[in-house]
């Protein structure tokens, strides 16, 4: 029992597992970066300029500028979620890569930690590539926008941990569709990615207040606009709390599944 519910046993043995994922990524790096860019770019250009051209200012700035911050957050969220769900599930269940690794001195806890750190690493790369586009389009010119690079791996840890908990429960890829359609899509609508949360009815605003993506957006948007965000410790604490709780839940679920 202690083995199932005990705190995660973390060690540096996770590093070779992280390097394994990095080596795979390097083989497909160009396609991966293009994939990271295409989706947010389509939204920023399509919605931002298309929809933006018929909208007045949103939140005091042009719509495309408003949307850019939302896209940084939702794209890093998506990157971490995909990595922690589809890719990790492939390695765990389809390719049995985890089984092979656990026959060595690397423990399950190390493997799960490696997957989490890897998801956060990919989030960072995804966030960086979008930021480069934002800077190139002139949508943000403040030095404060560099702080978003610190934020992206934190978003990655949060949604990577939640995604891993889903993976621990999944028996096929279809399972992840529930999470995407029932959790992630509504969260994007409620978190101020596409429009200000203040547009929502009061009960929805109350829900939005506890969503991790909302807190990520609350940090990213002012930073891109060159302002210091309000309540920085609160937003960090919420993201870290989701990351910690998600990781611990994932750990328990993976142990029950794989060490029984």
């Amino acid at each position, binding site marked *: 029992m202690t083995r199932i519910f005990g705190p995660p046993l973390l060690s540096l043995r996770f590093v*070779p597992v992280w390097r394994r994922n990095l*080596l*795979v990524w390097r083989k497909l790096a160009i396609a991966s970066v293009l994939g990271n860019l295409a989706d947010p770019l389509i939204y920023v250009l399509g919605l931002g300029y298309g929809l933006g051209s018929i909208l007045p200012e949103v939140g005091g700035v042009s719509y495309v500028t408003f949307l850019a911050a939302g896209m940084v957050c939702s794209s890093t969220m998506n990157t971490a979620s995909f990595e922690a769900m589809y890719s990790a599930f492939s390695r765990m269940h389809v*390719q*049995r890569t985890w*089984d*092979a690794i*656990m*026959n060595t001195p690397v423990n399950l806890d190390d493997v799960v930690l490696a997957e989490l750190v890897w998801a956060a690493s990919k989030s960072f790369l995804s966030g960086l590539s979008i930021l480069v586009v934002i800077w190139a389009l002139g949508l943000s010119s403040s030095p404060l926008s560099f702080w978003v690079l610190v934020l992206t791996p934190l978003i990655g840890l949060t949604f990577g941990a939640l995604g891993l908990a889903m993976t621990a429960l999944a028996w096929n890829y279809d399972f992840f569709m529930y999470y995407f359609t029932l959790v992630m899509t509504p969260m994007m609508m409620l978190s101020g990615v596409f429009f200000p949360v203040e547009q929502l009815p009061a009960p929805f605003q109350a829900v939005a207040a506890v969503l991790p993506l909302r807190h990520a957006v609350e940090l990213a948007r002012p930073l891109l606009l060159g302002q210091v965000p309000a309540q920085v410790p609160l937003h960090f604490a919420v993201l870290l709390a989701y990351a910690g709780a998600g990781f611990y839940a994932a750990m328990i679920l993976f142990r029950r599944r794989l060490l029984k």
Partner: protein
Amino acid sequence: MNGVALAAHNLRKRYDGQDVVADVSFGVAPGECYGLLGPNGAGKTTTLRLCLGLTDPDTGSVVLMQKPVPGEARAARLRVGVVPQMDNLDPDFTVTENLLVYGRYFGLGEGVIRDRIPQLLEFAGLSSRAASRIQALSGGMKRRLTLARALINDPDIVFMDEPTTGLDPQARHLIWERLKQLLAEGKTLVLTTHFMEEAERLCARLAIMDRGRFITEGSPRELIARHIEPHVVEVHGDGVMGWADGEAAKLASRLERSGDTVFCYATEPAPLLASLSSGEELRYLHRPANLEDVFLKLTGRELRD
């Protein structure tokens, strides 16, 4: 290395109220090849997982390479190689990359691993395939690479879960030859199998498992001598059942029927053979008893899936 390489004591593991492994105790000496035989679902793989510390026993204890498992399983596994039942080579990597990445999991330095790779590729007969992708390998090549991968840390003991299942005879014989080579180098092997020929060729000692329990343990010859008559006459053809009920029942010490074949077990086969040569329509095969006869006697002939 002194003492025992692996000692399991009174292992028990239950899933859903059913014993998958029950009262299993055994020891493996350094340099020995020890076999776990049993039909599908006998508990062989679970026993291996318990020995490696990949799952906790409900009761009982394991000492692997002088380390208590699961307590110090990580330290124990530094000295262990594992060939799993299902191939789980990394499909995104080449042959060489598979070995390199696997060596890192043991904390080995890049230089140490790169020095070992050529020897391991030669051992596996894959020297010309170093840069091949895994998808381009045949089943036999994949198995050999999996064996080479299990040796990347130069282990003292290698666990193999059905190492030749699904291979053609050529590939199987090559694996057997390599395993004998490892034994000659002084490595300890623990393997599960349901190929009796494999067990007879490789294992100094083996245990037959069924329904989670050890039924018997010993060298292949001891098991044959202990459990079964030395001669077997397999008989089939029209009228075989009548012959079995009549003459054979008197001449053989034991009879087994399977489909339309009668297996006659005897210490002295001459009277049986004489009886058969007078009956024209019966066809027969006379052979020495082997491990498979022991296995089938102890675990029964009905299907297990």
